[in-house]
């Protein structure tokens, strides 16, 4: 097992954070948040990966006959995807409202709430 996929997960997370921190557009920011979340998918699937493993579907293979990848993390990833879809949809809806009320999607111009 190499460290490479873990490094990829960490890189995706940090790159998403960088995008969020420097974003000039709220839709872009919500997209960056999804990038951060993609890092969690990569990490979870990496954790469940087995060398030479196959899909954990036992309709055509005998249990125990060959290694399978971990189905638990796949279930977690699926749940995570659902959570992510909800969050992204809600945040995008809020961005639409922000644009309607403030007339801009640039976080630099949304400075009313400060101090």
């Amino acid at each position, binding site marked *: 097992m190499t460290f490479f996929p873990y490094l990829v997960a960490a890189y995706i997370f940090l790159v998403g954070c960088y995008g*969020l921190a420097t974003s000039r557009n709220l839709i872009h920011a919500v997209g960056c948040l999804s990038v951060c979340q993609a890092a969690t998918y990569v990490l979870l699937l990496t954790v469940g990966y087995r060398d030479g493993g196959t899909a954990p579907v036992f309709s055509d293979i005998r249990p125990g006959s060959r290694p399978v990848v971990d189905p*638990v993390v796949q279930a977690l990833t699926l749940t995570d995807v659902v959570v992510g879809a909800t969050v992204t949809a809600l945040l995008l809806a809020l961005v639409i409202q*922000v644009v309607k009320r403030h007339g801009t999607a640039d976080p630099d111009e949304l400075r*009313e709430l400060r101090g």
Partner: protein
Amino acid sequence: MNHLLPLLVALPLLGAGLLAATGRLLPRIAAETAGVVVSAGTAVLALVLLLNSSPPLVEWVGGWPPKASKGGESVGIVLVGDGVGLGMAALVSVLTVAALAYSWHYFDEAPEGQAGTFPALVLLFQGGMCGFAIAGDLFNAFVFFELMSVVAYALTGHRVEEARAVQGALTFGVVNSLGAYAMLMGIGLLYARTGELSLTAIGRGLDAHGGPDALTLAAFVLVLTGLLVKAAAVPFHFWLPDAHAVAPTPVCMLLSCVMVELGVYGVWRVYGTVFAGPGGIPAAGLEHALLALGVLTGVGGAFMCWYQRHIKRMLAYSTVSHVGLFLVAIGAYTPEGDDGAALYILGHAGVKAALFAVAGILLDRYGSVDEKELHGRARELRLPAVLFAAGGLALAGLPPFGTAFGKAVSEEAAGGPFTVLYVAVSAVTAGAVLRVAARVFLGLGPEPEEAAQAETKGTGEEPETHGRLGRLPDTMVVVPTVLLAAALAMGVVPGFAGVVSHAVSEAGSGGAVVTTTHWTPAGVLFGLLSTALAAGLAALAVTRPHLTAPHPWTDPVRRLRSGHLGDYVAWLVAGAALVGVLAWPSVLGG
């Protein structure tokens, strides 16, 4: 009895689903009654379970217990109902009932013709928070964490026509979601190491693996980051004032009094069950991280609280500041500290909810929560004035309020220089509340002038009712009165503290460590001292208003809150790094 545990989550979710489905057809009164009945039913259930929670209840949902034949491994979902978890669930439920009762009938219907929406969302919020409180495995804790977060974003931006509300909700949403994903990364790492998800099993797995290493530390930092974002510890706190200042008042009561505290609870629970063993992070690591962040949070929150003129924002910063005190109490890592934090959280919930409720009355009657604009205008509101002032005194730690009791116990557990922190933070945050009480309700001090610098004002807010309130609805006055009375009862009723410490010790150490908590002369003395200081600060602020105006020398700190989303994300990453740096030496040493 343990079979009833899942109902704590299922009942509110079911009620929310029904209300969402039938909300269009129901008249408003029916939808609101249904909301109150379901949340009150859940509250009763939580209290009944709480009374039966010794020994702790454990439920494997769906009948998937671990099988001895498979080496005790399980993929089932476990719910744990011990005194602390169920206590938090009961607090959540009681406050939900209070929030729904407070918004009863008066709360402006939005969107029009969908009476079920608001109560359905509040019930969903309740279900998510109860689930988080009793989740026995980390992944479900994450799912419930996200459920309550998402509902909280929606509730914060409930009044979608308001520019500030949607902006606050968006900041809240992005920062909290990022924290949640960090937490999920940490959960993934813990699963990679141990192959387990249930809290106790992860703890055992870490211990079996041997001493802590880089992976354990990374998992610790990531999980803690998610929880501390929810708890609004400095520097993760930037979302909180924005969200609390713009959310509808009943939602503020829930956000500020229990959701934020659930983050603190999560830190306590996860460290105690997962990382406390020899394979986890040594206690010194947790102590360094929590004490440093706690002091930073307490001081920073109190400082910003003092300079607010927007009353809800001021209360929000006072919450930040008190979270710092809770973190210090937990970071002391003694059984007494845990008792103190539990008592303090309970007392704080009652007091802060009452203060928000009174702020809501001001908003609905005058269309403003601005301290300067409201100067002397609320003279006619006698009872709310008394409630607001009493809330301020309770916040300062005036014995025998529950807040004073919790403060005294935490203060003694933390000991030494932290006593100064407790007294100072209580005095400054309460001083700000008392100053508002004196200016707004009594009209004391000179007429305020407009400041030159830009600051967040509380003027021009839309009332949450149909037009401005003429006569105060009874519910809006009764709810804060009852909440304050409850906070008072917590410090007065004999035996209450004993019950709380019993629950904490059973949940924390399996009942091995027995502690007793009671009022001590030093605790009473420091409570009176901080109350006197708070009154003095308030008097000073009223007679010399320029002391509360923004000064050039406070500008650097105030500018940190730039209102820019990207800055808050950068602070979050910096905060996570800080937690890592603080916990690192203990891992090297261990």
